[in-house]
């Protein structure tokens, strides 16, 4: 286990460096920069600004300075929100996105797993058909469509939730619902497939033959193995959901990281974009390591190497 973690740690550093280098080159290669404005700056003022942000240095000097800063965990000041460091922006945005993502994930699991179990056990019955149609819809409908319906329903027709914003538990419900819906649908399908495979396995037949109750067979024996695909899906899904969804955050005006991500790219906010890309890499990598570790706990046949 320790060897596994150490080797993953080494690979993490290499991955982060590679992601840093590629992002750095891509950002500089794309036309347009953080100093471009609708009304063009006076050349002298533009020179002064470039000097202030060291944009007038040669490429390699910029690269080594940035890399040095990143190694010291100093991501610098955002170009676009100049009063804040990238670290401050992440510190304020990540808990918001994480809370929303966590709530959405919780909702997705609470809805998806039972739905998957039910439709696997009642295979081809009416319950299965209804649930799987709903799941297909959930995957097919984009976030913003669901959000539109949710807002019409629960903000205007039956006004129980606020239209947008952040700060009270009521604010979290609708966005978590919209963000979690496709995940719930996906998890339901994964659970169903996993469950169907397992239910046909020999050891389940043995369990049944021993006279265990159907509930005990499903929950104690089948479910844990059937959830393996769900767990491997959860790794990247958690990393993605925790760093925020630009669409849902924009519609509900939530101060999470998702909108920052998109805006940083559009506005060529070099420092913020870099910080977020590295953060996402770290989270994705961390989530995948956790998933690998979780396999051991769920499936006795898996060993870490």
């Amino acid at each position: 286990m320790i060897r596994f973690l150490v080797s993953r740690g080494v690979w993490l550093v290499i991955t982060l460096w590679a992601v840093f280098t590629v992002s750095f080159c891509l950002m500089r290669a794309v036309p347009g920069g953080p100093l471009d404005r609708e009304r063009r700056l006076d050349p002298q003022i533009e020179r002064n600004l470039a000097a202030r942000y060291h944009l007038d240095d040669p490429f390699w000097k910029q690269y080594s300075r940035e890399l040095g800063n990143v190694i010291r965990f100093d991501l610098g000041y955002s170009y676009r929100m100049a009063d804040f460091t990238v670290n401050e922006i992440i510190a304020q945005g990540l808990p918001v996105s994480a809370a929303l993502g966590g709530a959405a994930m919780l909702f997705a699991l609470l809805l998806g797993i039972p739905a998957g179990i039910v439709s696997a056990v009642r295979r081809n019955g009416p319950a299965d058909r209804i649930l799987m149609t709903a799941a297909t819809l959930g995957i097919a409908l984009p976030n913003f469509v669901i959000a539109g319906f949710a807002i019409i329903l629960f903000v205007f027709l039956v006004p129980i939730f606020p239209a947008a914003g952040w700060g009270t538990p009521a604010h979290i419900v609708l966005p978590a619902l919209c963000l979690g819906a496709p995940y719930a649908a996906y998890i339901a399908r994964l659970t169903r497939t996993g469950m169907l495979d397992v239910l046909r396995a020999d050891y389940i037949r043995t369990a049944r033959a021993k006279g265990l109750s159907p509930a005990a067979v499903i929950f104690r024996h089948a479910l844990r193995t059937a959830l393996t695909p769900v767990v491997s899906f959860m790794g990247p899904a958690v990393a993605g959901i925790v760093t925020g969804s630009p669409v849902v955050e924009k519609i509900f005006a939530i101060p999470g990281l998702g909108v920052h991500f998109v805006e940083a790219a559009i506005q060529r906010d070099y420092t913020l974009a870099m910080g977020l890309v590295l953060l996402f890499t770290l989270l994705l990598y961390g989530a995948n390591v956790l998933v690998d570790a979780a396999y051991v706990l769920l499936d006795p046949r898996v060993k870490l190497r």
Partner: protein
Amino acid sequence: MSNRRQLSRVLAAATLLLVVSGMVVALALVRPDRADFTFCNGTEIKTVDPALVTGQPEGRVVWAVFEGLTSYHPQTLEPLPGVAESWEISPDGKRYTFRLRREARWSDGRPITAEDFHWSFQRLLHPETAAEYAYEMWYVSHAEQYTAGRVAVGDPVEIELPDRPPGAAPFARGTVLYGRLLAVEGLGSVPASNDGPAADDAPASGDPSGEPVYVVEIGGRRRRFQRASAVPRDPAAEDYDWLLYDFRRVGIQVVDPHTLRITLNHPVPYFLEIVGFYPMSPVPRHCVERYGYPAWTKPENIVCNGPFILKSRRIRDRIRLEKNPYYWDSDHVRLNSIDVLAVESAVTGLNLYLTGSSDWIPSVPNEIVPDLLRSGRTDFRPAPYLATEYYIFNTRRKPLDDARVRRAIAMAVNKQEIAARVLRSGQIPAASLVPEDIAKYVDYQPPRCEPYAPERAAALLAEAGYPGGGGMPRLELLYNTHESHQAIAELLQSQWKRSLGLDVRLTNQDWARYLASRRQGEFWISRAGWIADYLDPNTFLEMFTTGNPNNHGGWSRPEYDALVSAAQVEARPEVRMRLFRRAEEILLQEMPLIPLYWPVTRNMVQPRVRGFYPNILDIHPLKDIGIDDIGIDAGDPTARGSTMRNWCVGDRPWPWW
């Protein structure tokens, strides 16, 4: 097995704990109670440091927490006394003497003096600050030289030695020496030049090759200065941080603690508006030097002088403003607290407005404007706005260098169709670069360009040698990705095809890339928009002078340049406007641009809001806004006959998705 089960339970519990604690953390930073007045500000602001901001959302906040020498009347936009209670203008229009009010204080109780303004203007103009709006102060004598770091032999100069204490906050200055520049010696290749602007870009440029040596007379002694990084280093030279024109000779003088004198290069009729413009607000030296930028802008550190103070700030969420008890006119400030929401999406803003969570939204989504207009709502009234949407021609490329071709292309544009079919929200088809509505505020009546005439356009194109569009290269129309820009571009594409037989390709690029293409002149025809900074035709016409950074099409006419620069320095208003008009006539005969339409404001304001007036710069000082919870005051133009009923299903407003 049981071990594993325990582990998995621990893992599940840990995950749950993480999620719950995350929610608690996020929700623990909850909002305070509801503010008196809440509005959507469009986006997160870049900064609250007045010297560094540009843009309308930033302006709304900066104007609420700072106040310059003058302020704007919310309706007529006349300059009103701000920190300055009165002023005198010399008969030649070049010298302004401002008398500051003695009761003006910073939000920590310290008095505001002329010295504060002097220091703030120096900070604004200093190249290290890199203020984007510094050019607005270049009307002040020698100010441009100071920002540009341009010094000539014989000039008085200031030299800042590189002895700032380590870790000093930016703009806490090291030792500053004052002297007279005797010579500029370019070591080796660059000879010392004595004529004209000698060392054009020397101190500010980062070019290490041939760093010149500055010979300066200080207190009767000759001293030599050169950057330590210079490659052939003069051994006798001292290092320096900044070598600039002596700021004491720039036209901003402290006469006494409550009198400030500003001397201009030439008369500027709108200078009182300029000093009220938000970048020209004073900043507290004691606070800026203590914390440095940007730490001084944090709510816990900031000291300001406007009607409101910055109470708290959450990124991309909200800014809470509260009434400033030290503000000189705080008796007339009607709101105790304001929430500024950083809502990016216009649809979300509208939802917040319709559910009563926002009192003012500065724009509504394009698609619903026709419905809003039809509904007869009185809380939505588009008003004229001093801005122009237009296309520019790249006159460096053939055949767009031929005025006949440009005129033909422009004459084939049916602007009525744009307004009626695409925009549909009261925008006015533009016949000139300067919006006609400026005439309501200043005495300027713009000339009109040739009207829509497809047959004449075709004839003109044939005359230029391209009958029926034959022989023309394939033109490209560049615009930034946006629904309405795209719709207009498609409409014009079909209009040009129909009347001139021209095939125009459409190219859309994301914002930053579009700006870069335009800057580098990589386009045939490009979309552009311009919003006036102040109430004067100059803000538009200056743009098309030779060498102006915003003259992307490269059009150049000496007569035009001469007329604009003559108008800029002209003191007599009627002569000045005549010169501008003559210049715009040339512009509209040559057509380096196609004026398309004049946009309108799209404010939506709840009927309970008082003191909100439409005006042509779309400036709405928060100081003048009040809230009326009692009922509708028939005398107030913003509240007459609210017709919410048209808009409701039952008693609830209807969403506009």
